[in-house]
């Protein structure tokens, strides 16, 4: 805004008053899309609930050793004493949630579960994101036959429903480890991210600021990395948030099918629910209820935040 230099007849205090009043009413103009979206997010109760859940989950995951009363893999004589195949000891002094089916402290396993679940979810999401973004960026930036080839590959991958693809991948893996599960769940998301990024980049290729940059003779790589990628990334971040929820649900489903992480020493909620929770459901339903609740809550948190973010970033909702 240019200074109104033409105001000559106006007293200074009035001029200041105008400036002051103008400043108040015109805030909201000229704020960037992301800052604007961020502000809308902060006003959205769903986003806040989601964020709080995720934050809590993160804190527990990071500070698990401080929060948890015990080592999650240690077997305790006081727990194994009363443990049999058809009865799992409940709460006792020092073990607020009692035992797991192997005489380990269930509360500690729940707490460390946040860590492992985060690990599986984040890695599965990140790996999927990384390769997806890479493929999508190449397809979007290079175009031509490379684009066609990459899109055909994603077609083949998308030809199977996601969980089914993950199941197939685990079945087709020569080893079954935690990584098999993480990679199977990750691969499922590669085509989704690839298509998302490519679509967004294609849309931008025709957008004004990219056309302008091109007209100014900016090099292609520069356009891609400085102009197109950053703008596509918001969509990717939203998708990643939503993917996280799906990833931990898929991991749980794989465990239930007996195709999950085989190492039951690992305290991961999906594994705890899909294996012990189901097997000992009648002996001690808490073994299912707690991990299930934790999964539902975390999935809920990420879905809430992800969808709120998507809504906030939607240009349709700008005012």
């Amino acid at each position: 805004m240019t200074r109104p230099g033409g105001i000559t007849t106006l007293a200074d205090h009035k001029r200041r008053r105008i400036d002051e009043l103008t400043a108040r009413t015109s805030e909201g103009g000229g704020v960037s899309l992301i800052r604007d979206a961020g502000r809308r997010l902060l006003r959205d109760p769903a986003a806040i609930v989601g964020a709080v859940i995720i934050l809590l989950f993160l804190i527990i995951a990071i500070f698990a050793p401080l929060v948890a009363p015990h080592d999650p893999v240690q077997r305790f004589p006081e727990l194994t004493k009363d443990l049999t195949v058809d009865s799992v000891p409940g709460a006792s002094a020092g073990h607020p949630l009692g035992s797991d089916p192997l005489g380990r402290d269930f509360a500690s396993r729940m707490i460390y579960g946040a860590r492992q679940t985060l690990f599986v979810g984040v890695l599965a999401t990140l790996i999927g994101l990384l390769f997806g973004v890479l493929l999508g960026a190449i397809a979007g930036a290079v175009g031509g036959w490379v684009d066609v080839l990459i899109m055909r590959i994603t077609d083949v991958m998308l030809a199977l429903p996601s969980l089914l693809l993950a199941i197939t991948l685990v079945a087709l893996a020569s080893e079954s480890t935690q990584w098999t599960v993480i990679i199977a769940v990750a691969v499922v998301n590669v085509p989704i991210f690839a298509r998302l990024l490519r679509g967004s980049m294609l849309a931008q290729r025709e957008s004004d600021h990219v056309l302008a940059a091109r007209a100014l003779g900016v090099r292609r790589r520069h356009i891609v990395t400085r102009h197109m990628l950053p703008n596509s990334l918001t969509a990717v971040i939203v998708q990643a948030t939503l993917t996280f929820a799906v990833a931990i649900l898929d991991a749980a489903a794989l465990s239930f099918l007996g195709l999950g992480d085989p190492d039951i020493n690992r305290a991961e909620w999906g594994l705890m629910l899909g294996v012990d929770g189901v097997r000992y459901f009648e002996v001690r339903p808490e073994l299912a209820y707690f991990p299930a609740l934790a999964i539902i809550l975390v999935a809920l948190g990420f879905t809430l935040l992800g969808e709120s973010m998507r809504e906030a970033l939607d240009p349709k909702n700008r005012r």
Partner: protein
Amino acid sequence: MRAPGIIAAGIIAALAIGAAGCAESDRGEDDEAATSGTFIFAGAGDPKNFDPIFNDDGESFRPIRQIYDTLVTHKPGTADLEGGLAESWTNDPTGKIWTFTLRQGVKFHDGTALDAAAVCANFDRWYNMKGEAAQSQMIYYTDIFGGFAGSPDALYDNCKAQDASTAVLTLKKYKGAFPGAFALTAFSIASPAAMKQYDADTVTQNGDSFSYSTFANEHPTGTGAFTYGGWDKATGEITLNKNPDYWGDKAKVDKMIIKIIKDENTRKQELRAGTVQAIDFPAPADRKALADEGYEVLERPAFNILYLGINQKNNPKLKDLRVRQAIAYALNREQLVQTKGPGGSVVADQFLPSSVLGYAPDVQKYEYSVDKAKQLLSEAGATGLTLNFYYPTEVSRPYMPNPQEIFTVLANDLQAAGIKVNGVPRPWNGGFKDDVQQFGKQDLHILGWTGDYNDPGNFVGTFFGRPKVEFGDDALTEMFTAITKADATVDQAAKKTAFEQVNRDLAAKWLPAVPIWHAPPAIVTTKNVEGLVPSPLTAEEFNTVSITK
């Protein structure tokens, strides 16, 4: 608890009106009345087919055992032999010639008579089976009879019908497996006429598997207490009908249905819902609850073994007996049995259950002692040992209901004794058996066995009677010789003594593996099921079963 029901009921009503528009049937108690005279038994998996010789798994053998009989059979509830189709049998002093005196007046389901010629026709059929497709599926035959026509290893020489009721089987050499092996379900006697009519020998390869004949699939014909009534694969129901002309105790129910329910949890729930009257292999965790609710939990006498195998090939330290003993001392087997053993499980101190010939009560026991384990390890200079421990996933076996838990507990024990364990999970059919038994990649592994008949050779002979990749190489030649010699002993008393010594040596001198437990599988029935006798061999016959009201 009520609310979901009401909601669901609402949805149902909507569905019923919207989707089908059909009248809601009155679901009363009359459903159960309709099943009187029918015994519904929940099995745990699909049978492969109904030709005994082409099968080697319990789920196929369950219906086969009802349809067919074997020459020799077991006294109900034991692994002791008694007459089957053969009222009696004799063995000549060389152990090579078996003479069977057959029961009179026994008829196959197709009406043809069971006579010596029919028995010999079965032996001849097996020996002369053509084609690798068919031969590759005769697992028990290959194992027991060594091979087929033309093979130097073949045990079979000839079978003669001396008269209508006397069949004489001549083998090339003595084998300790007999006469117990004659009771194997795989060696059930089938009707030669039916086999001919329905091309029983036709096994064709297609893709990665095989097609079987109509005999095996649709017209299994034996002499058993039940006749084959069909297999509805869409609902997983195998129907068996009472054979009114059965030679023995005629079936007390008109019909038996084997309902295939693969998930143990679902089997239990169906039992509770009253839709099946008996379930096989209940989850160990559910047995107590079911017993408390008033169901009959029939434990089979333990006839299996779970062991921790030690492969001496990859890690030279494992060649040292002291290291293997240290492993044995490190394992808290009592606690494993207490915490994870199915009801009736006992710690195993040798590789066969106490009911089997040659069981030695005085073997070295290796009571749990971390100190002894550590001491032995340091004596052997094997502190800081790291071992690859292979364990199977995607599988549940009667002797190993939950391999992952067992592995976790055992690995935990070993770590406590200072042995580092690198756990390697492998899917049962997706590499475990290959890696362990073909390639010997492991240092340690868990595996087990359910006995087929009451013979020590069927246990220790199977594991340690010959060099096996599973346990490393042929370093223990002394062991192979001793077992082979014991197995070849014709005199039963001498055989008993020989195997007792083998078991003592296995525990004290050789220790190629550590026996863990004998874990009896169970059957659970409703209160109104009577006469079901659990078999240690998982070889129940259901003709004695009746259903009271």
